[in-house]
């Protein structure tokens, strides 16, 4: 029982989250529209619906703070859609603040704590200060020969839209269509969507004329800037009869809304037929959330842990499969050729199906990157406004899909990168004017899939990275030896940005200088098995490229043997594997190195680093191999005894009592019931090369 309640609560939170995200998207679109001096009533309406649904849900689950916020927000959005309140930058700011507050409120509700959220009351006060301005002046509708009976049944919202359209100088048309009752839903949607390209459908009402037992005649009131001929060309083939609603002649224009004047062109509309309720007439205006629910009906919300559990089962099936394969081999070796091949072919088809199943589960875990990009768009807008920088955000590839878990971990690092770009990258307006750049700075977020990886680029058109300043600071901090400066490649200089403690600005700003440096960004990306690279051109801009694996659930790994133990090394960080020529190994700076194609490669003997004792009865390997692993621009060769091939593995995290053990990202089951540790090349490279950095620092200290 309690479990059921918890489950329902969980669903409430994820649905609330979705609604807040959709609200956020609508607000961003409104922001864009506002800047382009356009108006999109549909967006306000959708935002209103999201908040309305949220209010209902919050009431159902006793989420008081969310409920209160939704209630007031709904009022504001209602005033907006009815035109009682003009949409301004300030109003949008408040609305965006509400989105942020929802995040806080939801996490407080989740903990079931009773802590009040004063920020909500603060925002509600500001909402109240907005007041609501009721537009005054004579009704612009008086100019049209509109049927009063129809005007009488318009909702307040429809009336407002009608007025607004007329004020914008749009013409009014009556579109009369005969619909078959059986297909009215689809036909109406179709004609509405066609009409939408010409203008706005204010309302539709049944004419009440009896046209047939299974048909119904509707009048659509359309506000449009198009000519009658255009409309007929576009809508006429549906059997629609289009008539313009004429303007009143000046002398007959009444001062108010006198009912005495009967328009000639629009015959009197009777009241809606008794059988037709209002909700059937305008479902989207009267039943908020209906459209949203329709979409949800096609999808199922699943706890990602359930998918993990399924993935584990698949992993175990893979073990069964391997056991079958071994059995087949044995039967064949023992002379049962016929039986052996039959088993082999069964095992092959099992393998294929298993692969399909694995891919299927992986696909379910995928979500579009747009989820993170939406959040970033909000941040860009907020920071841009607060810093007085005009920022244009260009997003491509928001539909690129990536593992849900990665998306969640990606939000913070990307947020930081974008903050940095706006704060440190994009110049202030005067500076941009001076160098002849467009006033608005551009931040581009590009995502695309490249093989088994997803690439995310964050690009700005700011002044680029001051290479000299970075190098100077790195030297001052002792991260780079002064003698080495001349030898630094540009890519190495850019990589210094990721060194802890390096920030090119003397004073940190509110946004990027919260004690979180690019080194943390890099660490977080590395934890996801990703690689981050940076490139910058003075005066042109900076581009940061993040390459991530598509999924964390399954990785391809190289199995290696070290002093009798098998380890798995994720292929994402393996560049190549070569045989180790001991004669090539030299000592440099107290560590072993070899030369690979003219470049020095430090070597790490895993057996020694891990302190592995030889297993009883083991013979020393005659030949050794070096697996070259890369982390950004850093490389390290791992000396191993044997390469045992490639295998797709499911990584399971080590338990808490092993959380202090460095160098492993988890463990995986091999086919033979044995468990192999999965190496964490990023951590090992970090550890090995930091050793050389400290020795360098020591040398600096004494010299």
């Amino acid at each position: 029982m309690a479990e059921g309640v918890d489950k329902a609560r969980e669903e409430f939170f994820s649905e609330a989250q979705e609604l807040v995200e959709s609200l956020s998207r609508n607000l961003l679109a409104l922001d864009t529209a506002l800047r382009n001096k356009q108006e999109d009533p549909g967006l306000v309406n959708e935002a209103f619906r999201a908040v309305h649904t949220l209010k209902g849900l919050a009431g159902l689950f006793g989420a008081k703070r969310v409920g209160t916020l939704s209630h007031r927000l709904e009022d504001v959005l209602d005033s907006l859609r009815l035109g009682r309140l003009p949409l301004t930058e300030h109003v949008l700011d408040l609305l965006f603040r509400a989105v942020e507050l929802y995040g806080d409120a939801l996490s407080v509700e989740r903990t079931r704590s009773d802590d009040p959220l004063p920020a909500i009351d603060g925002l509600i006060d500001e909402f109240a200060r907005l007041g609501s301005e009721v537009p005054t002046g004579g009704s612009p509708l008086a100019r049209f020969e509109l049927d009063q009976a129809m005007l009488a049944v318009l909702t307040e919202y429809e009336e407002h839209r009608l007025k607004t359209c007329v004020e914008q100088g749009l013409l009014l048309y009556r579109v009369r269509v005969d619909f078959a009752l059986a297909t009215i839903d689809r036909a109406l949607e179709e004609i509405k969507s066609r009409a939408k390209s010409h203008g706005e459908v204010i309302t539709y009402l049944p004419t009440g004329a009896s046209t047939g037992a299974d048909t119904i005649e509707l009048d659509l009131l359309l506000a449009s800037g198009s000519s009658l001929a255009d409309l007929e060309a576009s809508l006429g083939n549906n059997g629609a009869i289009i008539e313009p609603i004429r303007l009143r002649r000046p002398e007959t224009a009444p001062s108010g809304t006198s009912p005495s004047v009967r328009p000639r062109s629009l015959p009197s509309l009777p009241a809606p037929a008794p059988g037709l309720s209002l909700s059937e007439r305008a479902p989207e205006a009267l039943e908020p959330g209906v459209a949203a629910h329709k979409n949800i009906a096609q999808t199922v919300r699943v706890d990602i842990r359930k998918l993990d559990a399924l993935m584990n089962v698949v992993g175990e099936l893979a073990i069964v499969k391997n056991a079958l394969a071994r059995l087949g081999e044995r039967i064949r070796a023992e002379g049962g050729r016929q039986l052996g091949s039959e088993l082999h072919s069964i095992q092959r088809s099992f393998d294929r199906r298993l692969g399909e199943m694995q891919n299927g589960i992986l696909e379910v875990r995928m979500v579009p990157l747009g989820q993170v990009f939406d959040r970033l768009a909000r941040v860009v807008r907020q920071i841009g406004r607060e810093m007085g920088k005009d920022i244009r955000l260009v997003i491509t590839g928001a539909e690129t899909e990536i593992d849900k878990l990665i998306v969640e971990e990606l939000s913070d690092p990307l947020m930081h990168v974008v903050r940095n770009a706006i704060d440190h990258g994009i110049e202030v307006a005067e500076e941009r004017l001076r160098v002849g750049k467009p006033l608005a700075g551009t931040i581009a977020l590009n995502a695309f899939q490249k093989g088994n990886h997803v690439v995310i680029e964050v690009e700005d058109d700011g002044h680029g990275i001051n290479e000299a300043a970075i190098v100077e600071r790195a030297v001052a901090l002792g991260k780079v030896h002064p003698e080495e400066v001349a030898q630094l490649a540009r890519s190495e200089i850019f990589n210094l940005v990721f060194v802890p403690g390096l920030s090119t600005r003397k004073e940190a700003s509110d946004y990027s200088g919260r004690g979180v440096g690019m080194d943390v960004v890099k660490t977080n990306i590395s934890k996801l098995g990703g690689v981050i690279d940076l490139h910058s051109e003075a005066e042109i801009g900076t581009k940061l490229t993040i390459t991530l694996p598509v999924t964390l659930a399954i990785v391809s790994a190289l199995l290696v043997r070290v002093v009798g133990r098998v380890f798995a090394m994720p292929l994402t960080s393996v560049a190549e594997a070569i045989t180790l020529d001991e004669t090539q190994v030299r000592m440099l700076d107290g560590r072993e190195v070899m030369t690979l194609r003219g470049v020095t490669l430090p070597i790490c003997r895993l057996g020694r680093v891990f302190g592995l004792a030889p297993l009883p009865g083991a013979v020393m390997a005659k030949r050794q191999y070096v697996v070259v692993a890369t982390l950004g621009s850093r490389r390290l060769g791992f000396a191993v005894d044997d390469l045992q091939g490639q295998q797709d593995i499911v990584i399971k995290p080590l338990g808490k009592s092993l959380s202090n053990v460095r160098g492993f990202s988890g463990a995986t089951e091999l086919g033979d019931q044995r468990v192999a540790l999965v190496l964490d090349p990023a951590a090992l490279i970090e550890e090995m090369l930091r050793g050389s950095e400290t020795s360098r620092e020591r040398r600096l200290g004494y010299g």
Partner: protein
Amino acid sequence: MADLARTRHSSLARRTTGSQQAGLREFLSFRLGNDAYAVELARIREIVSSPPVTEVPRSPSDIVGICSVRGLLVTVVDLRQRLGLEVTAATKLSRILLTNTDSGEVVGLLVDEVRHVIRLSSAEIEVSGSVLGADLSDHVLGVGRPDGDFVVLLDLASMVES
């Protein structure tokens, strides 16, 4: 005769209701070296005979390694080492007691041999760890004396959560 029936009845009741009976707690007793130890039965989720264990380099010395029990990753702890006893190699009788921890980790305790389940009333539990070694006392709940036997009762939580 009536007396006999009553005794029989009460012992049956004891067996069937087990730990639910007031003051009666169930422990799983096992052997480490020549000594008997026990942990609360309810906290043991499973007993497995030693699967292949993979050692984890750089891990604390009392962790034998990790193993997989039907897809579940288990951290195996050498109970002798954790208690500061003399370390010996695992034998055919060695077993691993699996227990869940609050962090969600499954910990396996390597013991020399599993004995049996004992039920102790609070009168049979002597709460005094001071007579035992210093390493041990942190993890000891008390001493159980079922039917003249001598069993050291260990506090599972303190051993696996530390």
